[in-house]
């Protein structure tokens, strides 16, 4: 493995390739999750502030972790841009995960609106990480619009169904010259590992942890799986035979004749 294997997003360097979600679980578990995941980036959402809640999620996120606000709730580019600007005004950096959905059943991202929002936000100096349906043409448009990474979905958000779009994510990995971060639908460490073996730059997971029996332990399992997959990718996977077999043992010196 290379000595320095950094994930670079918008000029920022990260050692961890596990982007952690913070939704659907207690704020009190965040610190343990970040620690056991080894995560350096955590996603957040922006919502109307509630005066009755005295606790703020920012108080639970360890220092030094990069915040990645998403634009969830946006139904078009205009709403996503608005949410991104508000997120930046919250004073925690200029990263944004653009997430635009028109469909409320499958929560599938709207690639066309996402391209538009990416272009506007990149021009305003954001590090834009668009969440998208894995389509090569749309991904190329996002690259041209100024995206810092591409975040294709593995399967519908929160489904834990794994790499349903595997072949199309592979196309993005092969053809797009930006980090491909698999986001949404990864339910198990083995699926995260597989995506990393394919050459994904990182994995984003939330529901897989939030619905696990022991969240910090699952965070640790994901971390190990992602690291294993990365090492396997960097080492170069062994070939697969189309048919037949290939002995691993010497074909001479048998104890016969």
């Amino acid at each position: 493995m290379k000595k320095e294997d950094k994930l670079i997003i918008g000029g920022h360097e990260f050692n961890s390739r596990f982007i952690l979600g913070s939704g659907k679980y207690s704020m009190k578990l965040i610190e343990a999750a970040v620690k056991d995941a080894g995560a350096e980036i955590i996603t957040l959402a922006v919502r109307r502030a509630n005066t009755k809640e005295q606790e703020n999620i920012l108080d639970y996120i360890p220092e030094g972790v990069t915040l990645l606000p998403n634009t969830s709730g946006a139904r078009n580019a205009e709403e996503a841009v608005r949410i991104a600007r508000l997120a930046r005004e919250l004073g925690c950096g200029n990263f944004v995960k653009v997430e635009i959905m028109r469909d409320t059943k499958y929560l599938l991202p709207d690639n066309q609106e996402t391209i538009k929002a990416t272009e506007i936000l990149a021009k305003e100096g954001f590090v834009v990480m668009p969440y998208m349906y894995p389509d090569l043409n749309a991904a190329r448009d996002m690259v041209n619009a100024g995206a810092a990474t591409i975040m294709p979905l593995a399967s519908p958000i929160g489904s834990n169904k794994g790499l349903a779009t595997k072949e199309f994510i592979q196309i993005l990995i092969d053809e797009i010259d930006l980090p491909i971060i698999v986001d949404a639908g990864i339910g198990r460490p083995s699926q995260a590992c597989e995506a990393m073996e394919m050459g994904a730059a990182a994995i984003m997971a939330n529901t897989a942890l939030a619905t696990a029996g022991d969240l910090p332990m699952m965070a640790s399992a994901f971390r190990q799986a992602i690291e294993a997959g990365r090492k396997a990718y960097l080492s170069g996977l062994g070939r697969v035979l189309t048919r037949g077999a290939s002995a691993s043992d010497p074909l001479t010196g048998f104890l016969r004749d």
Partner: protein
Amino acid sequence: MVKVNGIEVDAVGKTVSEYIATTEYDPKRIAVERNGDIVFKSQYDVTVLEDGDSLEIVSFVGGG
């Protein structure tokens, strides 16, 4: 009246700073939008709320 996060409140004539001081909001943890435009923190003291204004006050929550 001023609409704050969808609820009408009596804050006409107050600055954004003065209004926030009457609430439980932590000014360090919120962002404010007035009639669709962000009110930067440096403008809280000089932005006076008018009748019919609509404010959105947001903060970070857990999310993916």
